């Protein structure tokens, strides 16, 4: 219990400490030459938090109530396997991106604010993973939006502020949709504690099942905003690219997964898959995810700015996960959760690569990056391997997840969608290759007319390359041992 609390409140307090201790300079002056104390402290805080977050699941399995918001709404924490899986992803990505920022943020202002909110975000994410009931989850879901917003509007430009506001409003609208659902669930459930198989009352299902379906749909749409599901996806390609690159990595790899976790929780642990399977909600939801998958890939394919392209790719890839959740059978759920890990690592790695390129060369558009592989070979190799992981080439994790997703869809026996699903996934995989690999191709093979004389060695420092290397190798590792990982996930799905 103490480790759960520590993993949540230690980083939040540490973040507040950084915000207060390292004063933000009043005007646009550079944050001073002496960055060392800030970086050392942040590094120590990050590592300690990671240790707490790792230790928490090992120590306590039973839940506990922190306090009561109202008589019937406890703030309750409990660790289960799904939460643990998401927490694992969050910790690894946040650590890697955090250390990457130490080098990257050198050219940005107001670093203390960035690290302060970064740590707060860490705590909130831990809390989300360990939340044991819907109201606790909702509480930290709101806080997640608020604590991640400063990262989006970090550079303070008009564009960033508008993007931050857009992010805020989409998220708040979504969260209200979810809250709307909670109001009703409050009446139709005995408890809002996450329980595998759902907590709906029998009587409520028979009396107003139709209305509950509508509630479920509104909640899916609401939480789906965070996961960038069509039709509420527009904030994502605006907000993610304007953040500093490591923050974009965290936003795209982890924070959007909070939306996924929310959907896992409400479908599996509140409504129960038995209640939703075979209803109109499932059908509509699947259609929406397939539209998102295809549309996201198409938009990414046509996007010239690298980070925007990656953001569109996030839109598309997240809906793979949501598609798997919508199919609601064992294989598809395994595929989804596998994709959560695979996409998390890959997308973080890709954004960090993009960050390294921006940091070293200042280039943001894809067509400017011809010959980049000659200048930054290590980074571009990582980019290539990570890209293959996203496309789904064996032996990467992306292949395994897509395999399970297709399998689950074909087994589901839903009319039309069972075959249409895998087809769209395949087409989108082709598009993924189409928008990621040109960078590799033109990067390493700039063509005959390319002028090689202007090339310099631009490989970034170890502080940047090591996190990228780690994040690139992880999807390959999980792809090499799919059985072990799938076994763990299967246990999680079965609700242990």
């Amino acid at each position, binding site marked *: 219990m103490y480790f759960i609390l520590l993993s949540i409140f230690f980083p939040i307090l540490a973040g507040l400490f950084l915000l207060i201790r390292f004063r933000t300079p*009043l005007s*646009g002056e550079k944050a001073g030459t002496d960055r060392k104390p800030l970086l050392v402290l942040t590094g120590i805080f990050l590592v300690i938090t990671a240790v707490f977050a790792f230790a928490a699941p090992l120590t306590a399995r039973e839940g506990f109530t922190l306090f009561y918001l109202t008589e019937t709404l406890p703030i309750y924490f409990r660790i289960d396997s799904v939460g643990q899986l998401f927490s694992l992803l969050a910790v690894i990505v946040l650590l890697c991106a955090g250390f990457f920022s130490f080098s990257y943020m050198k050219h940005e202002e107001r670093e203390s604010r960035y690290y302060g909110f970064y740590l707060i975000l860490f705590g909130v994410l831990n809390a989300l993973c360990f939340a044991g009931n819907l109201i606790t989850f909702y509480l930290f879901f709101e806080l997640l939006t608020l604590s991640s917003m400063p990262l989006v*509007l970090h550079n*303070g430009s008009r564009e960033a502020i508008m993007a931050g506001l857009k992010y805020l409003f989409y998220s708040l609208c979504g969260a209200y949709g979810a809250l*709307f659902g909670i*109001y009703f669930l409050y009446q139709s459930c005995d408890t809002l504690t996450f329980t595998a198989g759902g907590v709906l009352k029998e009587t409520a299902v028979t009396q107003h099942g139709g209305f509950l379906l509508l509630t479920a749909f509104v909640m899916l749409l609401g939480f789906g905003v965070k996961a960038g599901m069509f039709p509420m996806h527009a904030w994502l390609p605006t907000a993610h690219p304007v953040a500093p690159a490591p923050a974009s990595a965290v936003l795209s790899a982890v924070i959007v997964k909070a939306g996924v976790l929310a959907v896992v929780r409400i479908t599996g642990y509140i409504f129960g898959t038995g209640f939703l399977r075979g209803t109109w909600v499932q059908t509509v939801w699947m259609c929406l995810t397939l539209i998102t998958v295809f549309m996201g890939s198409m938009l990414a394919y046509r996007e010239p700015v690298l980070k925007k392209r990656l953001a569109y790719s996030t839109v598309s890839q997240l809906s793979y996960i949501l598609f798997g959740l919508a199919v609601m059978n064992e294989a598809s759920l395994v595929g989804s959760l596998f994709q959560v890990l695979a996409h998390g690592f890959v997308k973080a790695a890709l954004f960090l690569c993009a960050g390294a390129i921006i940091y070293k060369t200042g280039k943001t558009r894809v067509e400017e990056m011809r010959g980049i592989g000659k200048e930054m070979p290590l980074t571009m190799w990582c980019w290539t391997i990570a890209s293959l992981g996203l496309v789904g080439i064996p032996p990467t994790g992306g292949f395994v997840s897509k395999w399970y997703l297709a399998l689950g869809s074909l087994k589901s026996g839903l009319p039309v969608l069972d075959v249409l699903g895998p087809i769209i996934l395949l087409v989108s995989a082709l598009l993924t290759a189409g928008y990621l690999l040109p960078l590799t191709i033109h990067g390493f093979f700039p063509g005959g007319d390319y002028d090689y004389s202007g090339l310099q060695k631009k490989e970034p420092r170890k502080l940047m390359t090591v996190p990228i290397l780690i994040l690139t190798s992880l999807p390959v590792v999980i792809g090499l041992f799919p059985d072990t990982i799938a076994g763990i996930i299967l246990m999680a799905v079965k609700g242990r």
Partner: protein
Amino acid sequence: MNFICNFPFFSILLSLFSGTVCSVLPAKAAKAVNRVVIIAVGLMSAVLLLYLLSTGESFIYWMGHFPAPWGNEIRAGVLEAGMALFFCIIMYLSMAGGAHKLPGEVVESKHNLYYILVNLLLSSLLALVYTNDMFTAYVFVEINTISACGLIMIRQVGRTIEAAVRYMIMSLLGSGLLLFGLCIMYDLTGHLLMSNIKESVAQLIAAGEYQIPLIVSVALMCIGLCIKSALFPFHAWLPDAYGYSTVSSAAILSSLVSKGYIFLLIKIIYRVIGFDIFNSTRIIDVLFVFGLMGMIFGSLSAIKENDIRRMIAFSSVAQIGYIYMGFGMGTQAGMVASVFHILSHAATKSLLFIAAIGLTDVSGGSRKFIDLTGAAYRNKWAGVAFTAGSLSMVGIPLFSGFISKLLFAQAAVQVEGKMLASLIVLGISTVLNAIYFMKTVIRIYTTAGESPYSGVTFRDMKAYAVTLLFFILLNVALGVSSQPVVNMIEQGLAMFA
């Protein structure tokens, strides 16, 4: 009869007479008297509240020991004592938070006048809370109006005089309508005492007599109090009155004065007309519709506003809308939500007004958003406080605003016909609130180049910063441990019946 039962009477008289005393005292002493009186009344209310919670039933106090038709009655229950205590806390914090601005806002020679008005206001609020007699209520409504007008006008710039005149006209219209309603009621029932009127009304309803005059009387009283508490569309007086008066006045006016009238309306609903009879009329539907409209149009006006004080003032229109929506639901749960929102809004809105003054002070006194850019860095305490208030207004969990939204929604779910409308409007209003409050928060935390204004540190404003801290704590306390408060409200409403 226990000695504590005298406390309501003491509180009213103490604040009334301290007002008179203030007129001959120098400004400094008047200020001290004002503070002491507020604390004393607050303590008495707290003791009274504890006493009532322990006995578990309300009591009626005869002024001068004359029984009803000749003497005047005071009634105290858990809700009344709780309200009085809460009003004192907010009033003290508002006065403390605005104290450092007073010399700049009001001419030196009028300072003791200012404290007279505040004491009078407190006494009239207490009387509205405690009285059991409709005519006394009317008298103190007038006293309240006059002192509120004085509080607006005491800062003598053109806009405040205009605002005060506007406020006067609208308020007098309101009290006039209240008086009409009262007269008709007196005519129908022959009583002025709340409990007696209620009996007669029940008899009239049972006999089916004078239905239409009765409804007209109730409607007139409702409209009168709606105008005075600035329910949409009677809110035209509000933005100027709150926007240009002294900062303490703005905080007090928005969080206490309008709430006093609303509390009187609750008393009328429960103790004069009877909750069930009131709910069987169409009046609640009207209140419901105007409440919903207020929630949306108040926020829309706030979004368009380019002046931070007026923006906060317009947001009050929306929040008052919430309270009337709760009335309009016509259920016990709706009423509980409304009463909780009275507390929550009072705590938040005064916090916002006090925090806003800190921000405008470090921006050369300008209230335009463009000048407020980066103000939160120049006055950190005010920035944090404003952010906390905004989060509460938007309804982020852990702040009081979330609990009131939760209570409203839970109440709405139980009312078949009004459920969808209330939930949708709650949603729209949440998003609209977020638009203008978060926009402001981002604005004050944006650093854009060299700022011409200098900042302040904790040492320059200890009292102010501590006040803000207490306000934030009050908000968080209401948001985190709301259950005892809600239980108290439920108990208090049960005592009303």
